[in-house]
């Protein structure tokens, strides 16, 4: 119970900070929390807002599917083969910390404007953490389990479905959580730079029209949704790790 009130206090403090900032810089630069909330409710009730949500949602969904399944496959393969994993790990780590936005023009040239470029951009952001987490999860499976699998003559698909996936599940959820955040980031950056639809475009469009209220409202909706989804995944993640340990 203590925890919940504390969390609530932090939220209250954040909103208060926002309000104070609003008083300092004025409405032209930063709308007040109440005003932004009103605009957010207005947006959520309007018919023109939802196609943008759908656009971003579809791009995010495709990118996530590609990132998770692609990442799982590559990660399991690299986890099973120790040498391949050792060769790949530093490469993956440096790809992870690369400012991938510099590659966006190449992706636009390769895929053209539209959904596919956004999906590709979201995927390259999300797939690498999923690979790294999966690889490490597979590596830390107790060798005795793999040996018993060999004794029981499990086929590779059976090995993956009965031993590797269940044993690696808690780490996979962690990977999914990081992957989700980065995929969303990738899709939104894609929309901010060259797009005619989606929430990222809406933010850029609002700034172009000096509509700070709308911009703040979309940012609020995005940030809240992202934090809620991530908190949900975090909850599952912690429960699984507790059960595993």
């Amino acid at each position, binding site marked *: 119970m203590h*925890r919940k009130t504390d969390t609530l206090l*932090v939220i209250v403090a954040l909103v208060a900070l926002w309000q104070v900032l609003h008083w300092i810089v004025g409405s032209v630069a*930063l709308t007040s929390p109440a005003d932004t909330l009103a605009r957010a409710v207005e947006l959520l009730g309007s018919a023109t807002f939802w196609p943008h949500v759908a656009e971003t949602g579809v791009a995010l969904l495709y990118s996530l599917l590609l990132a998770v399944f692609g990442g799982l496959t590559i990660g399991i393969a690299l986890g099973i083969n120790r040498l391949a994993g050792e060769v790949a790990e530093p*490469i993956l780590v440096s790809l992870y910390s690369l400012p991938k936005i510099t590659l966006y023009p190449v992706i636009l040239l390769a895929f053209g404007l539209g959904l596919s470029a956004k999906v590709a951009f979201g995927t390259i952001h999300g797939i690498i953490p999923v690979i790294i987490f999966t690889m490490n999860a597979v590596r830390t499976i107790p060798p005795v389990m793999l040996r018993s699998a060999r004794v029981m003559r499990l086929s590779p698909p059976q090995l993956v479905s009965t031993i590797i996936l269940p044993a690696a599940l808690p780490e996979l959820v962690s990977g999914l959580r990081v992957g989700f955040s980065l995929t969303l980031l990738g899709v939104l950056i894609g929309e901010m730079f060259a797009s005619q639809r989606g929430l990222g475009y809406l933010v850029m469009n609002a700034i172009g029209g000096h509509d700070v209220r709308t911009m703040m409202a979309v*940012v609020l909706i995005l940030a809240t949704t992202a934090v809620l989804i991530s908190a949900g995944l975090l909850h599952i993640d912690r429960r699984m790790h507790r059960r595993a340990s």
Partner: protein
Amino acid sequence: MSWAGWLRLIVVTGAVLLLEVLCRAGVIAKTVLPAPSVMAGDLYRLLASGAASADIGETLGNVAMAVIASILLGFVAGVAIHAMPRVRRALDPFLATYYAVPFFVFYPVLIVIFGLGAAPIVVIGTLFGVVAMLINTLNGLDRIPRVLLKTARVHGMDPVRTALMVKLPSAAPYLFTGAKLAIAYCFIGVIAAEFIMSSSGIGYSIAYAFNNFDNARMYALMLFIIVLVTVLNAVLFTWERRIMQRRRR
């Protein structure tokens, strides 16, 4: 170098060579991706002519400021939060979900507040880097062996000397990891911010070249960023491994 290290070198070289061959053979159109050797040539000419020096200097300056701000703020905040367990418990879910917030959507807000210049870019970079440093500072302080703290108490060391002679050296590897992540994140934040909306810097130059179909310049700058960040990360990664290994002995 280890066997895996050599293999890695072969894999990377092979990938670059493959790209070169595919581009030269026309499988990948010249308008999509020029051959790596052409890119390198363009980069050499660009650097030699000095036409990009101002932008490069600007970006590196912004990154440096963001890195310093992230490391200092993250460290101080980490130490402060670690000293207050209740605050820490309350903040914990927020720290864990921090990176889920797509920070670039705040960038336009920052431009409205700070104006178009270096300030909003440095702030975005700092927002990106600071929490990585904070989390790792907390991590490091958590893992100081109890026995060391007890020893310090037995010897009657005052808090300042305990902090300098016991806590800091013992948490150092984690602080290093935090700094390493902060550097990587600041690069990402600064370059992305310049890319989306700015009037100078490497990110801006790439976006500008893209909008003007100046592929030679765009790819040269991309290559510059990729090489710079990769080398920097590789150095930090190796250094970090060495520190961790020394710790294990």
